[in-house]
């Protein structure tokens, strides 16, 4: 281990100042020990006047205020108007500990902070507690990365890919979209049902975007085949005597929306916990003794009939009745065929732009074939068909040849057969080639 004296204090601060990302050193009492120049530029605070202030008033990140999810329990730390001396000894000891190569337990999350110029900046906050050889915490090192550029890029990509909006001009879809402005602002739980590919995820995200929670996180949960105990920790977070508090999806979605993609895949024990959350508004993280109230709107979805799931015992009746406050049903594409032509044109424009091609549209035969197909995979399948066609077609007009071969054949495995007329058309076209 390098001796502490081998570190020149001024040099340490110079190195920190030269780093391209923000660095905040916080004492175990929650007071700012040092902030580097990158963080000073980002937040608008000057390093010296910020020294001694409670870190929550300097960093001003969402997680600092909501209860630091990184394990920082420093809210009661009082600040001081008189700047304290630099924590020179602790800094040197901490740097020596870092140089010793002892691994640091880092925790990281995405949040945002408010600058002195009143700008909200999305950031990634990574938190390293630094201990001396005896295990005493010397200080906490917070690394703050500005995610503004990444978030802007993400928004542009979403717009280019047509995400974030529900498309449909049929009466069924118009009835559904007309409900969104009324449903979105309420905090009521929502249950979305619809076959695969009908746009349940998109509808959940649209509800979030249209709500007052739109600036808060939208967290999507896919229930993976994990043991129930791990799923509980994944969803509700966990804490322990020797481990820092680990936020679950509820804590990550604080103030925003938590979307559970397939509610019936949740184990029954977890369903009971969710029902309790809908009743009380509070959750109990694993290993915690005190409940927390995360203020999260719950949106759930299933591609099966919820009544049938209840009868089968896959969905708790209690949970179903609580989720059923608002029940949105997405109709399958075969029941709103008037949307097909509009969707075909929409996705053709989208993929033409992506593949840098120009199309005038679909030929009459191709349009007939596509209009007659039953789309067991719904809008997702239609989108994939158009993407395939736009990819392989080198003509101005997309003809039957550019469509996937399976469109002309009966889809017996899905239980939904294509209409025979379309199959004949497809075969007829192929024979002419």
């Amino acid at each position, binding site marked *: 281990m390098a001796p502490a004296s081998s570190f020149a204090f001024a040099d340490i601060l110079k190195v920190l100042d030269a780093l391209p990302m923000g660095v905040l050193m916080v004492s175990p009492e929650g007071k700012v020990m040092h902030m580097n120049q990158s963080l000073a530029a980002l937040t608008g605070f000057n390093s010296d006047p910020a020294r001694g202030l409670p870190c929550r008033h300097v960093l001003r990140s969402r997680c600092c205020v909501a209860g630091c999810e990184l394990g920082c329990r420093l809210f009661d730390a009082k600040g001081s108007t008189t700047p304290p001396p630099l924590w020179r000894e602790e800094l040197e000891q901490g740097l020596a500990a870092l140089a010793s190569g002892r691994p640091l337990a880092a925790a990281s999350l995405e949040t945002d902070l408010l600058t*002195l110029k*009143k700008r909200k900046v999305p950031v990634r906050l990574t938190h390293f507690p630094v201990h001396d050889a005896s295990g005493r915490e010397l200080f906490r090192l917070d690394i703050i990365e500005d995610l503004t550029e990444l978030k802007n890029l993400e928004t542009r990509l979403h717009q280019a890919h047509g995400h974030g909006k529900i498309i449909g001009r049929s009466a069924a879809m118009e009835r559904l979209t007309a409900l969104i402005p009324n449903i979105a602002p309420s905090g009521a739980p929502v249950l979305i049902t619809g076959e695969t590919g009908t746009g349940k995820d998109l509808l959940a995200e649209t509800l979030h975007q249209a709500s007052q929670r739109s600036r808060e996180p939208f967290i999507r949960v896919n229930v993976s085949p994990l043991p129930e105990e791990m799923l509980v920790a994944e969803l509700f977070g966990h804490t322990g005597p020797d481990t820092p508090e680990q936020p679950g999806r509820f804590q990550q979605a604080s103030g925003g929306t938590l979307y559970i993609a397939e509610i019936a895949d949740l184990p029954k024990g977890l369903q009971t916990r969710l029902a309790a959350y809908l009743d009380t508004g509070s959750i109990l993280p694993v290993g915690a003794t005190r409940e927390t109230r995360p203020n999260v709107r719950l949106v759930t979805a299933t591609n099966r009939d919820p009544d049938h799931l209840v009868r089968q015992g896959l969905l708790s009746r209690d949970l179903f009745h609580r989720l059923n406050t608002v029940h949105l049903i997405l109709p399958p594409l075969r029941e709103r065929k008037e949307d097909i032509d509009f969707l075909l044109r929409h996705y053709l424009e989208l993929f033409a732009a992506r593949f840098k091609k120009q199309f005038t549209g679909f030929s009459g035969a191709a349009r007939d074939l596509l209009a007659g197909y039953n789309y067991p995979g719904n809008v997702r399948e239609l989108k994939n068909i158009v993407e395939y066609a736009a990819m392989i077609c080198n003509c101005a007009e997309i003809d039957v040849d550019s469509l996937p071969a399976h469109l002309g054949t009966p889809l017996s495995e899905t239980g939904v057969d294509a209409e025979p007329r379309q199959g004949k058309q497809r075969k007829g076209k192929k024979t002419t080639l």
Partner: protein
Amino acid sequence: MNAAKLALLTVCRNEIAPRFDMAAEVLIAPMAPGDAPPDPDGNDCKRLVLAHISSEELCDLITRSGVATVVCGAIEEDYYHYLRWKRIDVICDVMGHESAVLEKLVSGVLKDGDRLYT
């Protein structure tokens, strides 16, 4: 006695909440220049715990309550300008205990960025 105007402080654990949009509690106090600062726990002051943490709902509460001055920590530009447009004084980036803040506010010397820790 001077006419009292209402001041609203966004608070968290008896100090100014670090962020306006994350404040779960507000303290509404009558402010008459020259009078003694009101006791935050006295009958003159009203403490409200908000059902939802939201800047929009907070702005709605402020405009409906006839508040003349808002004292808060960090605030986003949109909400700051909205409140100013509604002719409400906003003293922001304030840090410190609510009693210390009320004392400076009633004396008319509280300003943006004041750090009132002792």
